[in-house]
C-alpha cells in the first residue's frame, strides 16, 4: 500500500515536473548553518566550524542524488534524458544522421515494397468464405476456347458437357462451379440504358449460376446470381462488381434493378458483388460484370456453350469436409474420361490412345486461378533476391557508420566511466541512440515503401483499372526489414561502447590514444563485402539490360511506322456471320475515304498482340507431322498494312472471295517445317487432318513476322482470305467463330494524331454498336509486349544503382574515418619528408585494395548467381565479358571517387597542425 502510494506520488511529480531543488538547497543550507552555529558555540573558529559541519553532513552531491532518486520516475526520466541527448548528438553531426537515415530508408523501403507486392501476388487468398475447402480442377493455364488434348495428360480447360457431367456425378463436391476461362480476351460492351452515355468496352465474365454460392459470398446490395438465372430462356441478369459500383456509379442504389445494354442486349443488374471480391483470379483489370453462362450465346454471340465438345471453362469446387483429395482426384479423372470417350475428338483410334492419359490434377483453389502468380513467380523471386542484397548492403553501411562513430567517442565513454557511470547506463544510452536512429530510418523507409510499391504496381500493370492488388506496405515485409535494421543498429551501436567500457578509464583521463591507427579489420571486411555484393547486383542489372536490348532488337519483320491498330468485335456488336462480307467491304470503303489512309488491313488478330489461334496442319501427300500452325483470316491489304513482305508467289488478292477456290498464304517457317529443302510449296495443298488435307492451296509465302511474342522461333502460320472457309468444315457458317475479324490495321502516309477519334466516328457511323475495343499505334502495341522485360530491367538497374551508391558511401565513410584517425601519423610522415602525392597515393591504395578484394569475391558469386536468373534472360548463356568489364570498371570508378576526396583532404594536412592536434 505504501509503495503504491509512493508510485503514484512519483508519477505525479514526473508528470507535473515538480522540482523541489530549491527546497532541498534551502533545507541543506539551513542545516549547515545550524550545525555551524552549534560548532561556533562549542568553541570552534568560524571557518573550522563550517568545515566540520560540512564533514558531518556528508557529500552534498550524494545527498542530492539520493534525494532525486526518491522523486519522479528515474527510469523514465533517464530514458527521456537519453533521447533528448541522442537527438542533440544526431543534430550535431548532420552528415552522419542523414546518411544513416537515408541508408536505412532505402534498404527498408525497397524491401518492404517488393515484399508487399510479392505478398499480395503470391499469398493473397480470394476474399471468400473458407478458402481452404476450395479446390480447382486442373493445374495449368491453357486458355481459352478450343478442342485439344494435353500432351502430358493434364487437363485444365473443360467443355460445358464435361462440367455438367461432373457436377451430376461427383457428390463429394458440395458445389461445383464453372467460369469462363478467356474473358480477358473477349470484352463486353456495356452501356446503361437510361442516361445516353457512350458504351464502354469492359471485362465481363460469364459464370455458372452457383458461382457466388460456391465462394460463399453475400451481395453488398441486391442479390447475387442464382441457379434460376442460369437457365436458357430466363430473363438476362448480371451482377456488378463493387469497385465499379463505387467508382462509376458512386454507390447509387438505383443501379440495382436498372437495365443495362450488354452488347446491345438488355440485361438487368440484380445486385452488387461484395466489397473486395475481384473475381476468381488476379488480373490488373478485374471483371466489372458477372453474367450467367446461359446468357452467353445471346449476348456474346458464341456457339460453343452447348452442343459441342469445345473446351472453354475453368472449374472450381467446394469439397465436403472429410473428403480425401487423392481419391477424389482419381474419381474425377475416371469420370471425365468416361464422358470424353463419347466425344468425336476421342473416338478415333488415335483419340482413344490419347484419352488414356488424360486426367485432372486437383490443386488448392483458395487463391483462385493462379495464372498470374505462376507467370510472375520467377520474376518475383529475382526481385526479392535483389532487394535483400540491397538491404544487406544497407545494413553493412549502417554498421560501418555506427562502428566509426563508436570508436570516435571512445574517449567520451572512458570519461563517463571515470565519472562513475555504470556500464549498463552507458550501454543504455547508446542503445537509445541506435534505436532512435533505427526508428527514424524506419519511418522514412515506410514512405519509400509506399511510394515504391505504387510505382512498382504502375510498372507491372500499366493501364490497369481497379487493380485489386493493394499497394499499402504489408506488415510482414515492413516488420522484416525494420527488424533487421533495428538489430543491426543495436548490435553495431552498442558493440563499440561495450568494448570501450572495458578499458581502464584512467587511460582516457591521461589523454593517451589507444594505439590503433586507422580502421579495424571489421570495418574493412564490411566494406569489402559491400563492394562484392554491389558487383553482383551491377552484373545482374547489366545482364537484364543486355537481354532487353537483344529482345528489342530482334527483327520482327514488320513495319510499325505510321500504322494504327483498332481492335473491334463485330460479334458482340450483333453481326451474324452472313452479314460480315458487307461489313468488311464497308469498313474498307469508309476507311480508305479518310484522308491520309493508304492501306486498310482487316484480320483476325495482329502481330505482337497477346492473341493466337492454333490449328493442326498436314500437307496433302505427306505423312501427318502432328504439328499445328497459327491461323489468321485477312483481307488483301493486310500484308502491306503490317509490313509483311511476300517472298514467293502472291499475297491475298481482292479476287479471293467466298466463291473462289480456297487459297492460303503460308510463312517461311511453315515451308521450312512442312516441306523438304528446295521443294516448291506453291500449288501444294494442306489442311487440318488426313480427310481435310486438300482444304487450302498454297499461293504464296511471306516473311516470318513475329506474332504474339518476339521470341517465338518456330512459329508456323497460314493466312486465309477473310470470307473463305475450309471446304471440309462440317458445320454451317452460322457456327463458324473464325469468320469474325478482330482488328483493323491502318497504314497512313503521315502520322495522324487524331486517328483514334476518326476511327471511332467512322465505326460509329457504320453501326453505333461497333465500338473500339482498343486503339493503339502499332509501335505502342509492340512496346506493350516488352513491358515485363522492361520493368525487370529497369528494376534491376535501379537496385544496381542503389547498391553502388551505398557501397560508394560506405567506402567513402571508412576511408574518411581512417584518414581522420591517422591524422597524426600522416603529419609525421609529411614532416619526415613524404610528398603530398605520396600521401594521396597511400590513401587511394587502401581504398582500391578494398575494392579489388570485394571484386574478387563478387565475380565468382555473380557467376554462380547467373544460373538462377538464366531462365529470365533472352539468349544469354553466361556472363558476357562486356557486362563484366563494364561492372568492374563502374565499381572501380566509384571506389576511385570514394577514395579521392578523403585522399585530397589527407594530402592537405598541415604537418604542424596534425602533430599538435592530438
Amino acid at each position, binding site marked *: 500500500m505504501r509503495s503504491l502510494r509512493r508510485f503514484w*506520488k512519483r508519477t505525479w511529480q514526473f508528470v507535473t515536473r515538480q522540482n523541489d531543488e530549491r527546497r532541498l538547497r534551502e*533545507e541543506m543550507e539551513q542545516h549547515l548553518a545550524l550545525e555551524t552555529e552549534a560548532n561556533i558555540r562549542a568553541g570552534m573558529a568560524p571557518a573550522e566550524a563550517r568545515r566540520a559541519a560540512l564533514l558531518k553532513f556528508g*557529500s552534498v552531491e550524494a545527498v542530492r542524488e539520493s534525494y532525486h532518486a*526518491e522523486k519522479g520516475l528515474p527510469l523514465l526520466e533517464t530514458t527521456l534524458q537519453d533521447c533528448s541527448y541522442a537527438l542533440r548528438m544526431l543534430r550535431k553531426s548532420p552528415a552522419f544522421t542523414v546518411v544513416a537515415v537515408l541508408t536505412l530508408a532505402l534498404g527498408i523501403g525497397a524491401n518492404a515494397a517488393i515484399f508487399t507486392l510479392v505478398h499480395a501476388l503470391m499469398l493473397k487468398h480470394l476474399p471468400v468464405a473458407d478458402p481452404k475447402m476450395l479446390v480447382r480442377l486442373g493445374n495449368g493455364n491453357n486458355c481459352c476456347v478450343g478442342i485439344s488434348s494435353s500432351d502430358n495428360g493434364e487437363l485444365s480447360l473443360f467443355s460445358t458437357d464435361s462440367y455438367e457431367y461432373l457436377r451430376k456425378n461427383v457428390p463429394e463436391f458440395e458445389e461445383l462451379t464453372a467460369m469462363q476461362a478467356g474473358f480477358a480476351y473477349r470484352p463486353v460492351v456495356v452501356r446503361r440504358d437510361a442516361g445516353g452515355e457512350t458504351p464502354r468496352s469492359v471485362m465481363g465474365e460469364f459464370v455458372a449460376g452457383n458461382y457466388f454460392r460456391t465462394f460463399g459470398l453475400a451481395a453488398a446490395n441486391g442479390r447475387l446470381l442464382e441457379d434460376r438465372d442460369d437457365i436458357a430462356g430466363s430473363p438476362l441478369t448480371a451482377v456488378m462488381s463493387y469497385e465499379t459500383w463505387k467508382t462509376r456509379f458512386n454507390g447509387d442504389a438505383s443501379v440495382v434493378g436498372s437495365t443495362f445494354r450488354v452488347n446491345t442486349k438488355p440485361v438487368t443488374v440484380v445486385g452488387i458483388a461484395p466489397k473486395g471480391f475481384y473475381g476468381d483470379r488476379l488480373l490488373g483489370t478485374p471483371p466489372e460484370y458477372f453474367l450467367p453462362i446461359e446468357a452467353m450465346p445471346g449476348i456474346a454471340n458464341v456457339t460453343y456453350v452447348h452442343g459441342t465438345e469445345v473446351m472453354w471453362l475453368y472449374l472450381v469446387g467446394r469439397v465436403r469436409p472429410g473428403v480425401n483429395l487423392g481419391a477424389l482426384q482419381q474419381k474425377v479423372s475416371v469420370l471425365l474420361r468416361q464422358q470424353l470417350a463419347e466425344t468425336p475428338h476421342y473416338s478415333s483410334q488415335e483419340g482413344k490412345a490419347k484419352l488414356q492419359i488424360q486426367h485432372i490434377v486437383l490443386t488448392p483453389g483458395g487463391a483462385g486461378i493462379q495464372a498470374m502468380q505462376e507467370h510472375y513467380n520467377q520474376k518475383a523471386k529475382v526481385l526479392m533476391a535483389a532487394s535483400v542484397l540491397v538491404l544487406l548492403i544497407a545494413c553493412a553501411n549502417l554498421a560501418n557508420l555506427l562502428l566509426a562513430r563508436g570508436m570516435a567517442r571512445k574517449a567520451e565513454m572512458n570519461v563517463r566511466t571515470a565519472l562513475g557511470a555504470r556500464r549498463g547506463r552507458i550501454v543504455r544510452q547508446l542503445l537509445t541512440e541506435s534505436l532512435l536512429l533505427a526508428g527514424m530510418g524506419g519511418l522514412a523507409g515506410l514512405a519509400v515503401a509506399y511510394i515504391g510499391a505504387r510505382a512498382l504496381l504502375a510498372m507491372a500493370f500499366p493501364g490497369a483499372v481497379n487493380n485489386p492488388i493493394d499497394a499499402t506496405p504489408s506488415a510482414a515485409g515492413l516488420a522484416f526489414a525494420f527488424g533487421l535494421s533495428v538489430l543491426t543498429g543495436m548490435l553495431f551501436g552498442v558493440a563499440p561502447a561495450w568494448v570501450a567500457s572495458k578499458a581502464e578509464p584512467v587511460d582516457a583521463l591521461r589523454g593517451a590514444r589507444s594505439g590503433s591507427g586507422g580502421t579495424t579489420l571489421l570495418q574493412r571486411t564490411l566494406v569489402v563485402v559491400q563492394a562484392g555484393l554491389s558487383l553482383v547486383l551491377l552484373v545482374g542489372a547489366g545482364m537484364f539490360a543486355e537481354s532487353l536490348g537483344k529482345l528489342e532488337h530482334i527483327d520482327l519483320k514488320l513495319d510499325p511506322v505510321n500504322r494504327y491498330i483498332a481492335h473491334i468485335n463485330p460479334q458482340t456488336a450483333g453481326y451474324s456471320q452472313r452479314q460480315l462480307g458487307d461489313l468488311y467491304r464497308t469498313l474498307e470503303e469508309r476507311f480508305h475515304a479518310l484522308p491520309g489512309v493508304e492501306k486498310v488491313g482487316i484480320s483476325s488478330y495482329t502481330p505482337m498482340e497477346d492473341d493466337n489461334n492454333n490449328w493442326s496442319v498436314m500437307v496433302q501427300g505427306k505423312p501427318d507431322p502432328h504439328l499445328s500452325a497459327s491461323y489468321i483470316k485477312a483481307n488483301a491489304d493486310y500484308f502491306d498494312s503490317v509490313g509483311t513482305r511476300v517472298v514467293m508467289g502472291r499475297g491475298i488478292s481482292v479476287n479471293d472471295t467466298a466463291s473462289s477456290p480456297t487459297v492460303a498464304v503460308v510463312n517461311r517457317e511453315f515451308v521450312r517445317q512442312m516441306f523438304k529443302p528446295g521443294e516448291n510449296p506453291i500449288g501444294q495443298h494442306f489442311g487440318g487432318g488426313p480427310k481435310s488435307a486438300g482444304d487450302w492451296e498454297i499461293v504464296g509465302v511471306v516473311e516470318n513476322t513475329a506474332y504474339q511474342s518476339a521470341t517465338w522461333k518456330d512459329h508456323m502460320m497460314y493466312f486465309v482470305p477473310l470470307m473463305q472457309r475450309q471446304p471440309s468444315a462440317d458445320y454451317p457458317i452460322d457456327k463458324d467463330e473464325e469468320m469474325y475479324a478482330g482488328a483493323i490495321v491502318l497504314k497512313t502516309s503521315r502520322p495522324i494524331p487524331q486517328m483514334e477519334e476518326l476511327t471511332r466516328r467512322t465505326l460509329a457511323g457504320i453501326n453505333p454498336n461497333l465500338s473500339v475495343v482498343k486503339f493503339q499505334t502499332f509501335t505502342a502495341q509492340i512496346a506493350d509486349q516488352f513491358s515485363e522485360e522492361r520493368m525487370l530491367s529497369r528494376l534491376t538497374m535501379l537496385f544496381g544503382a542503389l547498391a553502388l551508391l551505398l557501397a560508394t558511401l560506405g567506402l567513402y565513410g571508412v576511408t574518411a574515418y581512417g584518414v581522420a584517425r591517422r591524422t597524426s601519423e600522416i603529419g609525421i610522415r609529411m614532416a619526415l619528408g613524404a610528398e603530398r602525392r605520396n600521401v594521396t597515393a597511400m590513401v587511394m591504395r587502401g581504398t582500391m585494395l578494398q575494392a579489388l578484394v570485394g571484386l574478387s569475391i563478387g565475380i565468382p558469386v555473380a557467376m554462380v548467381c547467373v544460373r538462377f536468373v538464366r531462365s529470365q534472360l533472352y539468349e544469354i548463356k553466361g556472363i558476357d565479358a562486356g557486362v563484366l568489364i563494364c561492372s568492374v570498371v563502374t565499381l572501380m570508378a566509384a571506389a576511385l571517387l570514394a577514395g579521392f576526396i578523403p585522399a585530397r583532404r589527407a594530402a592537405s594536412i598541415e604537418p604542424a597542425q596534425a602533430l599538435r592536434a592530438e
Partner: protein
Amino acid sequence: MFECFLLLSKREYDILLLETKRTGDVKQKTDVKQGTLALMVLKTLEVLGPLHGFGIARRIEQISGDLLFVNQGTLYPVLLKLEQEGSVDSDWGTSENNRRARYYRLTKTGRKQLQSEVQDWQQTTDIIARFLSAKAEELS
C-alpha cells in the same frame, strides 16, 4: 564537447561518487540501514513533536550516543521517502534563531506505521533474545 555530470566537492572529502569504494576513516562508528533510520526518525518525531531536519539529526546523534555514524545529509532522502509514503507532513516554519526551516511532523498514518514497526522490532528482539539465552537442554 560532451556533457557530463560535474563534480562539486573538493579533493579532501573522500566520498565523491556513487560507485567508487568508500574509504571510511572513522572505524568505530557503524553504518545504519535506511529502514532503521526511518524508524528512528518516526520515533523522534513522536517523542519530540514537529521538528526540523537538523533537530532530528541532533536527537539521533544524542540518543545513539555518538555510536552511530550517520551522514546527516542522508536524512533528507529518508524524510522525502516518508513524506511520499504519507507518514510525515512537512511545512515551512521558523527555527529557534529566526531562520526559515522545514518542519516535519508525524501523521496518523505515521503513528500507525511506527506502532507496527515497533511491534515488529519487539518481536524480533524477543525471538533473538530467547535463542541467545536458550541452554542446550531446553532445546531437546
